[in-house]
């Protein structure tokens, strides 16, 4: 019997079609995996089901009725809950208070704390965990917090539970607890949509899998009738080799070296980067890749460690220092950290290099605009004019604007953190091409990406990060998603 049915769901954003007519059915009581590369449309699909967004066209049928699209409150009341890898708990409140938040039990006018604690305890026990309902959530590890999140979802009498990469930030032991909880929920008759990048989890937990690619529905398969390789092939949809531009130049000598970098999360990280090299940082979300990048860029305070560029030790205490040393960062969150959306393309591109366009402290607009126009044309930013607000550009063009900013500033080391996240396929290959071009001209690149094919396709060398440390260095002949995943998971 089908519990949920998507009918030709289309979601369009300016410049991107996130879902291009997706239809599939979910059987009641199954654990159903949804897989696909980043940008395949998984999140959009989930948001459509939970009502966080309204589809442009198409609709969702739930238990024989059309789901009220774009009305999250009503959808929760119908018994559909979701948990995400980012937690939405209140750290200062207790476990029980979190579980029953907005759904409290009363005794007369007052909260019935004893009753809520009792209910929470039995709920947590039914998930196979012995978390105490009275403790503050902030005292729990991320894994246990995730279980509290799960209990919260279940407490709302949920019949369909959506789990969006629930294990991404978890340790192995915590993942086991999560498995146990999922299996128990399934026994209680809850249908589960399980979104994950981790193949082994999908094979361990799920009954069926639906694959999405670039917003299109590809196929739904029984998990015991499919192999890992087949799944990867379906997700990627193309061979890795011909998609990424090959390096044609020789690598130079070591250019950037970092020695024993330490901060809160980063532990004793050392590596070096050659001139013209693309060095990939692989790892699971939360492993510390972004943190390493931010340390090198001076965005976060460094506890100890040394950074040398071309043999010269650099003191980097702020992004300002890093930029002066020739380092640029394209942050993972383009909209909140990279681009200045309320300013024009020209203002963005020249933002870090205004000194060179100033004469006696006064900006020279002609000089500035000629220069920004040159880079905008060079990087093929699609826009009618450099006066266009960056907020009006597509993701790919915004990323090019951020890149142009650093190229104009003559950066010699560029850190790309998730450079193609949320960017459509066409613009992706342009970004890859640009990365190769700049390395050919002697720029050294550190690349962070959760998209394994892209990371392996572009990198001349890959460092695998696990729990804040570099656990393995891989060379192209050893590249495979399985190897990377193995080290990234801490084996």
């Amino acid at each position, binding site marked *: 019997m089908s519990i949920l049915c998507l009918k030709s769901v289309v979601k369009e954003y*300016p410049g991107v079609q996130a879902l291009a007519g997706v239809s599939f059915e979910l059987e009641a009581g199954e654990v159903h995996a949804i897989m696909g590369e980043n940008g395949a449309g998984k999140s959009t699909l989930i948001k459509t089901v939970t009502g966080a967004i309204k589809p442009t066209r198409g609709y969702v049928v739930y238990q024989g009725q059309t789901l009220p699209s774009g009305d999250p409150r009503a959808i929760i009341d119908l018994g559909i809950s979701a948990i995400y890898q980012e937690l939405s708990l209140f750290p200062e409140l207790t476990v029980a208070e979190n579980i029953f938040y907005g759904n409290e039990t009363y005794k007369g006018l007052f909260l019935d704390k004893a009753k809520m604690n009792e209910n929470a305890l039995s709920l947590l026990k039914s998930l196979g965990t012995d978390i105490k309902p009275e403790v503050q959530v902030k005292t729990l590890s991320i894994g246990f917090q995730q279980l509290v999140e799960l209990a919260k979802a279940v407490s709302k009498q949920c019949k369909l539970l959506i789990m969006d990469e629930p294990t991404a930030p978890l340790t192995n032991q915590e993942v086991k607890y999560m498995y146990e909880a999922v299996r128990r929920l399934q026994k209680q008759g809850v249908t589960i949509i399980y979104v994950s990048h981790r193949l082994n989890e999908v094979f361990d937990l799920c009954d069926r899998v639906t694959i999405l690619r670039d917003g299109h529905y590809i196929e739904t398969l029984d998990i015991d009738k499919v192999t890992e390789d087949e799944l990867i092939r379906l997700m990627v949809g193309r061979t890795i080799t011909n998609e990424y531009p090959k390096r044609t130049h020789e690598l130079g000598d070591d250019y950037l070296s970092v020695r024993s970098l330490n901060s809160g999360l980063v532990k004793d990280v050392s590596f070096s980067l050659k001139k013209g090299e693309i060095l990939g940082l692989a790892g699971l979300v939360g492993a510390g890749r972004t943190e390493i990048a931010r340390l090198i*860029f001076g*965005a976060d305070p460094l506890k100890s460690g040394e950074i040398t560029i071309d043999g010269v030790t650099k003191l980097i205490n*702020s*992004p*300002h220092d*890093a*930029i*002066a040393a020739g380092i640029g*960062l394209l*942050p993972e969150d383009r909209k*909140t*950290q*990279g*681009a*200045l*959306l*309320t*300013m024009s393309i020209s*203002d963005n591109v020249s*933002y*870090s290099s*205004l*000194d060179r366009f*100033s004469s006696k*402290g*006064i*900006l020279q607009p002609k000089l500035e605009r000629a220069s920004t126009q040159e880079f905008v044309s060079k990087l093929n930013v699609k826009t009618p004019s450099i006066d266009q*607000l960056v*907020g*009006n550009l597509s993701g790919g063009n915004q990323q090019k604007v951020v890149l142009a*900013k650093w190229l104009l500033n003559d950066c010699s080391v560029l850190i790309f953190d998730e450079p193609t996240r949320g960017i459509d396929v066409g613009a992706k290959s342009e970004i890859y091409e640009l990365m190769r071009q700049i390395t050919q001209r002697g720029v050294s690149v550190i690349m962070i990406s959760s998209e394994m094919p892209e990371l392996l396709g572009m990198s001349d060398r890959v460092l695998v990060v696990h729990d804040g440390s570099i656990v393995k260095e891989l060379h192209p002949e050893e590249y495979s998603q399985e190897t990377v995943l193995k080290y990234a998971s801490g084996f």
Partner: protein
Amino acid sequence: MDTTQKSLRVEQPFGKVSLQFLSRYWIFIALVVLIVAFSLLSDSFLSKINLLNILRQVSIIGICAVGMTMVILTGGIDLSVGSMIGVSGMACALMLQAGIPPVLAVFLTLVMGLGFGGITGLLINKIHIPPLIATLGLMTALRGVAYILNGGLPIYGIPESVKFLGQGWVFGIPFPVILMIAVFVLGYVLLNKTAFGRHLYGTGGNEEASRLSGVNVEKLKTKVYLLAFFLSTFAGIVLMARVNSGQPRGGTGYEMDIITAVVLGGVSIMGGSGRLMGVIAGVMIMGVLSNGMILLNIDEYVQWVVKGLVLLVAVGLDQLSNHKSEQ
């Protein structure tokens, strides 16, 4: 009002651009409408003397509005501007009374203003007190200082040379007006022709992205408060020169007029957007409104109501347009 309502519904992709354009447009129309209305209602409104009077009256808040514009562009606010006007008038008058040479007295007063600006910058950027609270505290503390300086009494006896700052005329224009125009020109150059101005807009629009682009945002914001306090101190000295005395109550409530003028002028209270040209119109509207209401003998309490509503309408329109453009 009707035109603005309609302008909120313009086409989506360029909605923000045309909204900004129309809100700028609207403020100048409102100014013209106000002037026409008051000249119809009052015979004396359109006289040359009265118009020059309005300009002279707005010069104090005009000078401060330039600093306030920069503060608000960074997403901050300065509630202490009125108290700073009071303290600087009292301090300067006290020094003049004590026989300190005028040039030195003015100079020392300005240094004192910079000192308070530095303290504010420190409170906001190093101790991370939100600007609203930091300047609220200073507003009260500085007003107290203004009273303490001479036991709550005004200080008279301003030398002729200093009076010129507030009462002089050059080419038939009151000197404070010339000072205001100079400050506006300076502010325009800073905001539109220098890296400082560009970084100010960028930081107000997105502080983290600005920091990650290499801007020392703490230093930048400290500079902004230094500048704002310098200007309010300067305005305080001009006010003292105009009224011939240091008044402990001097500048009371000015923060309201100044903030309203800036927001009316189209500077977003969230920071990051707004032009000084609009602020000039905002300042003029505040001046015309006060002057016109006085000429029409409108009750002072009613004037408060009107001014309060003007601020709410100005901020409301800004927030509505922000909200629309986000969708």
